[in-house]
């Protein structure tokens, strides 16, 4: 017993102050890619290189629309690696969670040269910026208590590792009055990872039905949002929103614990709206 106490005292507090203070993320961490649409002369190599089809190009005559879908992005950096002029840059950014699926999509339109490279940027739309401070919302609506049931609907287990980290001392999600519960009947929120497999579809629906109203659904990771690398095939249904209504999407592959925290807090803010 003495040994346990001694170790605890010597260890001290290890919990991070995020989101009160900015997260400590190394400069060279691979977070979201950033696109300088004005500088981007040709999107086609990045489209080719992207393993999940997150970047698409549609040409109509000498006009091109380019879309970047952060809901499919796995932060691999292949797009930046094949884009010479530095128009695509990997950043450590992770606060990407959004309430609408479309908020994760950025689109740009270009006029083309004869060689089909970009001539001129006509317009570009950005991902919605982050919501306001959220802690007040969570306290008001859920009486400082949010119960989450995690459902793995077919993930590779990467997202689960990071969700588990939220319970660890470093992130300690309980400091927000948020805890993970064993049964959907005790839950206010389903935190769902995907893709939703054909074999998990029924279990996911039943879990949703067993969760009392009002309830929230948060889709986690590229696969939970869009099916990611797996997409839709004979064995998967794709993203969680193919099966359940989704309130918040958290991009990443997997999203780091701070990104999950950010998305969960964003979701709770919505209940009062």
């Amino acid at each position, binding site marked *: 017993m003495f*040994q*346990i106490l001694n*170790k*605890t005292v010597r*260890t001290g507090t*290890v919990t991070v102050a995020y989101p009160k203070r900015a997260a400590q*993320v*190394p400069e*060279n*961490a*691979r977070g979201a890619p950033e696109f300088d649409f004005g500088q981007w002369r040709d999107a086609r190599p990045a489209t080719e290189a992207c*393993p*999940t089809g997150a970047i698409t190009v549609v040409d109509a005559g000498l006009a091109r629309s380019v879309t970047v879908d952060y809901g499919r992005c*796995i*932060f*691999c*950096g292949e797009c930046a*690696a094949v884009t010479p002029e530095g128009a695509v840059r*990997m950043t450590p950014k992770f606060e990407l969670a959004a309430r609408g699926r479309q908020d994760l999509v950025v689109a740009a339109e270009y006029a083309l040269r004869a060689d089909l490279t970009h001539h001129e940027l006509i317009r570009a739309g950005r991902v919605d910026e982050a919501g306001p401070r959220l802690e007040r919302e969570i306290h008001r609506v859920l009486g400082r208590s949010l119960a989450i049931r*995690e459902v*793995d*609907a*077919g*993930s*590779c*287990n*990467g*997202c*689960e*590792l*990071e*969700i*588990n*980290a939220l*319970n*660890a*001392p*470093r992130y300690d999600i309980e400091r927000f009055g948020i805890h*993970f519960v*064993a*049964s*959907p009947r005790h839950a206010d929120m389903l935190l769902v990872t995907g*893709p939703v*497999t*054909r*074999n*998990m579809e029924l*279990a996911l629906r039943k*879990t949703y039905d067993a969760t009392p109203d009002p309830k929230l659904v948060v889709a986690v990771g590229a*696969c939970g949002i869009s099916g*990611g*690398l*797996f997409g839709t*095939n*004979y*064995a*998967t249904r794709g993203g969680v929103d193919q099966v359940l209504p989704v309130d918040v999407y958290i991009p990443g*592959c*997997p999203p*780091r614990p701070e990104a999950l925290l950010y998305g969960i807090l964003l979701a709770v803010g919505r209940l009062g709206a």
Partner: protein
Amino acid sequence: MRSVVEELKQEYGERLRAEPGYPDQLVVSVAIDDVPAVAATLREWHGARLVTVFAEDRVAPEGAFYNYYVFERAGDPCYLVVRGRIPAEDPRFPSLASTLPAVNWEEREIQDWFGIEAEGHPNPRRVALHDHWPDVHPLRKDFSLNTVLPPFEGERHVYRPTLGEGVFQIPVGPVHAGIIEPGHFNFAVAGEPILYLQLRMFYKHKGIEKLFEGMPAARGVYLAESVSGDSAFSHGTGFCQAVEKASGLEVPFRAQVMRTILLELERIYNHVADIGAIAMDVGFVIANAHAARVREMLLALNEELTGSRLLRGMVCIGGVRRDWAGGPGKALGQTLETVEREFRDLVQLIQSSDSTRDRLERTGILRPEKAAALGIVGVGGRASGVDRDVRRDHPYAAYGNLTWRIPVYSEGDVQRRMQVRIDEVRESFGMIRDAAANLPAGEHRTPARPMEPGRCALSAVEGWRGEILYWLRAGAAGRLERCKVKDPSLNNWPALVEAVEGNIIADFPAINKSFNLSYSGTDR
């Protein structure tokens, strides 16, 4: 293995043909009906172990399916692949499962995926496709990846009934109480003790092997990383090694050493987390808090070294994607020092707790003879007397240049499975130091080149769970024709069934965690 092949040739004459292979991978082909006899010769006369069995659809180009039987034997770094031809008009193969329980699931997978009958299988029911799936065989070439199957109806799986006075059935899952992967456990209990456990897996089947088909090799790396997210680097490396083999690519030694360091870092972060989780499952929560803290240090180090906490997007065909300018640097040395000290404290904390030891010792015993018969690999195997480790038996990356001790115990209980992890973490510290101190200068990556169409290659990696295998056939234009993935979990689920028998149900979480198998790796 070369001499073994010579002997087989003498015995089978023209019925056995040598196929193109590699110095460390010999390939012979036989008629499918000769396979049981060849397998028996290899196992009984040459002490070989059947590593895995899988199939391939070559109906369009060759009018046949093929089964591949991969053999290895102790002290021999060379694999032997026996290829059995199955004519398309008569799709069946003689089952080996009644004498070799280790291939029970794999043979049934072949039935499900390819519609090839495993003749004489003691339990030929579906395993990979749930019972209510329509009659489809997804890995046949004439089945399209994007086939839309109708809604499923009927029973998913019929379990063996649980009968008798005071005997109950406890169904658990697929959605579990903790933050873990889905699968169904059906316990039959008499009071507290478990009579038997029935498993229903493949809830997470995502069509991974089908997805590989036609995929450019470079993209396949990301899919391999997503077979089992906690083993992203091991699976990625296994896949890249197979592609490199099929394209005759020489990976720079610097990259080999970097891969070795990262493979061991993956082992450490998972082992540390498991050690904490096992302690937690018997009520020692504070040990888990410390373990989770140490794991965070390791994940931060991963991110520093690769840009990803889970080591994703680092390995690539031809080496690694990011170099460590000026060596792995201070981050590695400093973190390792802290982690080593913290790990010593953690182990001491757990070992000083008598009540923890009391719960772990003689709990969930897997006897060595059972482990051998079931072909159990990795941590679970080494705790039950199976002295096997791909790093030593079939050296890859820079393991040929390192020395370490492989912990093997014979008691086979939860305590020993935890002890194997503790020993391995300690060994890994030394291996990483060694490798980092001798990190050679040079390139970290060599440009990929297309695989020769039709070329096949096998690759093995000792992931932290155990033996990971990749086998592929190159298609046209640098694409994959077929890619077989074998995660160690597939071998090891039957070990869990064996180990829980007679234990009280309250010990199940600790027993399950002591194996910590990947559902996603199993289901693919």
